[in-house]
């Protein structure tokens, strides 16, 4: 199989989606094995694609394969795939994580209602996501983008009997949809300027300066709005924590590793266009920074394991945007990949905990679980270290790269701000780990019944744990070469736009990174180590208001609620009222009633008396005669 047939990666899961959704229910075990087979096939195919790509003789170049989709006059729409290193990176990330999540789910979801449906949608999700990353045109990107959103909606709302799940699903869909308004506008604006949806052609046009600056800025900002929505950047971040209402494997797959990075992916894909538009990159940086910082703060005070991880995800996405804002897509993609592995690990780990403790995800009731769940605990520990950016785990390398790139692009102030975010990352990660796995159990009853999960769940944890530990090393030239990338992995990633570039350790930044991680970890350890609650409440005591604000996530939800209630729904009530009473009752019914009323009045002219009738005749005659004399005479 060649890379031209990469569309099979998406087509196979899509086919399995249809299979499972139509026939999954009566299958033994809901056909969960088909899920593994489907994603597994894609996972295997990924290696074929990669190999084919690397084997392309001569200069390694993008692979394009497109067909004509529709014609309207001189508007020809082509649909196709475009395979370049970014795509392949995404292939790897998506198929790997999806496979792990599928396997994990077999254990985790056992006994749930609509078991087959869960797997069906997972396939659809994988298919859409894979289609998204290989699309050669923005229209196809948008199509898959929306399909991904729908799958997310279906999966968040998987427990639809719960109101909160339903609400969360709705919120996720609508929030991202608002961003999508921007995305669609941006796509169409770019189309209007260039006459094509093809990404490469748009990039060429933009780089050739065919599009006006202001116009281009508006267009890319509109597209960026969509990316912000999908990647839950401030102020669209509110849906992601709520999305944790979905089953935990879903959180791992969608809301940590793959779907939410679609925004990052698209921005990376279009970064050359962003780069042309003055100021666009600065906006991206600022949004990324703000998100990283704010969500860092928000995560500090959360007590729900998954919520902490959710905010952490948003924050890490902020990091990626910062990297993009620095004009360095390869670094962003690198962090994207490492983050996908360790965040999937963390989520699956937390899923394992939740599963083991019978759906308990409050830190306040957990503690000391390492003893009971050694594998989960260990892998979780690895993941935490990677997230916190401890050398030599994966997160360290990618974050370090971001700092370097950021420094090159925007200078020290940005690095400092991002550093603060990194400190907080280390802090809440440590807090999470300590409070869940260390110390004494806070709720004996929960603790009693906890047990280690089965191999179907721990297997993926171990696999991801290994990746989280070592995947950062590919940054080294030698490692890349060793695992088969000619010219090293950097050359692979930095194809075309930036030219070959060798990673070199900048020990200054590395030291800084290590320092930040240490500070965060130390602070958290100081507060939460042991069983003393005295220190852990130090912030709440010092400033209850601030603590409250952190816990309430800077009141974003309340603000939105008010805006929607008062603003949108209020406006809707006004419009509905206007429609009912002004347009309908007054305008339409009113004119009907007026007609009827006129008839009701006029009919009383008909008095039934001959003299009156004769009077009408006489008046008519006299009137006509006089009018005739006046008009004509």
């Amino acid at each position, binding site marked *: 199989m060649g890379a031209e047939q990469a569309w099979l990666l998406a087509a196979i899961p899509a086919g399995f989606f249809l299979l499972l959704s139509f026939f999954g229910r009566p299958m033994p075990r809901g056909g969960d094995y088909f899920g593994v087979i489907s994603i597994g096939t894609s996972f295997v195919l990924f290696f074929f694609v990669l190999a084919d790509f690397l084997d392309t003789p001569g200069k390694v170049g993008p692979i394009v394969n497109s067909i004509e989709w529709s014609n309207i006059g001189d508007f020809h729409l082509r649909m196709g795939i475009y395979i370049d290193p970014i795509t392949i990176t995404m292939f790897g990330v998506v198929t790997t994580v999806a496979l792990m999540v599928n396997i994990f789910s077999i254990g985790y979801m056992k006994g749930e209602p609509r078991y087959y449906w869960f797997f069906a949608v997972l396939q659809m999700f994988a298919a859409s996501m894979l289609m998204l990353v290989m699309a050669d045109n923005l229209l196809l990107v948008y199509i898959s983008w929306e399909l991904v959103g729908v799958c997310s909606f279906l999966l968040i709302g998987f427990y639809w009997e719960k109101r909160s799940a339903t609400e969360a699903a709705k919120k996720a869909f609508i929030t991202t949809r608002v961003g999508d308004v921007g995305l669609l506008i941006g796509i169409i604006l770019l189309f209007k300027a260039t006459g094509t949806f093809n990404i490469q052609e748009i990039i060429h046009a933009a780089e050739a300066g065919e599009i006006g600056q202001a116009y281009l800025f508006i267009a890319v900002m509109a597209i960026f709005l969509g990316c912000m929505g999908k990647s839950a950047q401030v102020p669209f971040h509110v849906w992601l924590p709520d999305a944790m209402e979905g089953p935990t494997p879903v959180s791992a797959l969608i809301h940590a590793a793959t779907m939410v990075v679609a925004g990052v992916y698209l921005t990376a894909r279009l970064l050359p266009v962003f780069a042309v538009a003055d100021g666009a990159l600065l906006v991206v940086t600022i949004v990324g920074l703000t998100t990283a910082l704010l969500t860092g703060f928000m995560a500090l005070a959360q007590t729900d394991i998954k919520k902490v991880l959710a905010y952490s995800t948003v924050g890490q996405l902020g990091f990626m945007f910062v990297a993009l804002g620095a004009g360095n897509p390869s670094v962003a993609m690198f962090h994207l990949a490492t983050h996908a592995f360790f965040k999937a690990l963390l989520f699956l780990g937390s899923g394992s905990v939740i599963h083991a403790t019978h759906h308990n995800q409050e830190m306040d009731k957990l503690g000391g679980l390492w003893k009971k769940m050694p594998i989960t605990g260990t892998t979780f520990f690895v993941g935490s270290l990677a997230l916190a950016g401890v050398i030599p785990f994966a997160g360290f390398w990618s974050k370090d790269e971001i700092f370097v790139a950021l420094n090159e692009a925007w200078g020290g102030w940005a690095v400092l701000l991002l550093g603060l975010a990194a400190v907080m990352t280390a802090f809440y990660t440590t807090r999470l780990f300590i409070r869940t796995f260390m110390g004494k159990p806070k709720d004996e009853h929960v603790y009693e019944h906890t047990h280690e999960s089965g191999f179907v769940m721990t297997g993926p944890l171990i696999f991801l744990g290994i990746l989280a530990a070592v995947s950062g090393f590919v940054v080294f030239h030698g490692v890349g070469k060793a695992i088969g990338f000619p010219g090293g992995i950097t050359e692979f990633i930095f194809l075309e736009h930036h030219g070959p570039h060798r990673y070199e350790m900048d020990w200054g930044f590395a030291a800084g990174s290590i320092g930040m991680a240490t500070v965060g970890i130390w602070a958290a350890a100081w507060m939460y180590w042991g069983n003393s609650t005295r220190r852990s409440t130090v912030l709440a005591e010092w400033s209850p208001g601030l603590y409250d604000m952190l816990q309430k996530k800077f009141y974003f939800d309340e603000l939105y609620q008010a805006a929607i209630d008062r603003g949108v729904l209020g406006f809707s009530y006004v419009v509905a009222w206007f429609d009912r009473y002004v347009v309908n009752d007054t305008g339409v019914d009113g004119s009907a009633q007026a007609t009827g009323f006129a008839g009701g009045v006029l009919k009383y002219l008909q008095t039934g008396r001959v*003299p009156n009738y004769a009077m009408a005749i006489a008046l008519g*005659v006299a009137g006509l*005669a006089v009018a005739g004399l006046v008009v004509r005479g």
Partner: protein
Amino acid sequence: MATEVLWWIFAAAIVAFSAGTVFSRSVLHSAIFLIGSLAGVGAMYLFLTVEFLALVQFLIYGGAVTVLILLALMLTRSDARGTPDAVNGPQLPFALLVSGGLMAVLIGVAAGTDWRPGGVPDSPTNIGIETISERLFADFGAPFVIASALLLVALVGAIILARQEEGE
């Protein structure tokens, strides 16, 4: 000259009788005024030298029609002497206004029209009975026939409507 004076007297009488017909409070008086007015018009036909029509007017109108009307008045009023017949109160002023206006318009038309571009003769030409009969029977046969049907219809209609049925 004398004819003119006489004409004016008759004209005044016609107007007066007509006014009496429509203004009189008593129906009986009205009927009598009507006879006067009709007779006056008949006289006018004499002025216009259409003796035959004057005769018809006296006979049919002065005789038959008024008798019929008087008969109807008798039949439809409990007291034949005729109590004052109230007029249509609320409409009265408008009736005056409208008929006055109509009168003004018609008088204006009569006076303001150039009836014949070459000028109207001063006096009427004598219309002999022969001319009338010739025209009526030779040239207007069709309406004459239709008019006979019309009279038949009126006859039949008056009979079936006025005929008393058993039980009345």
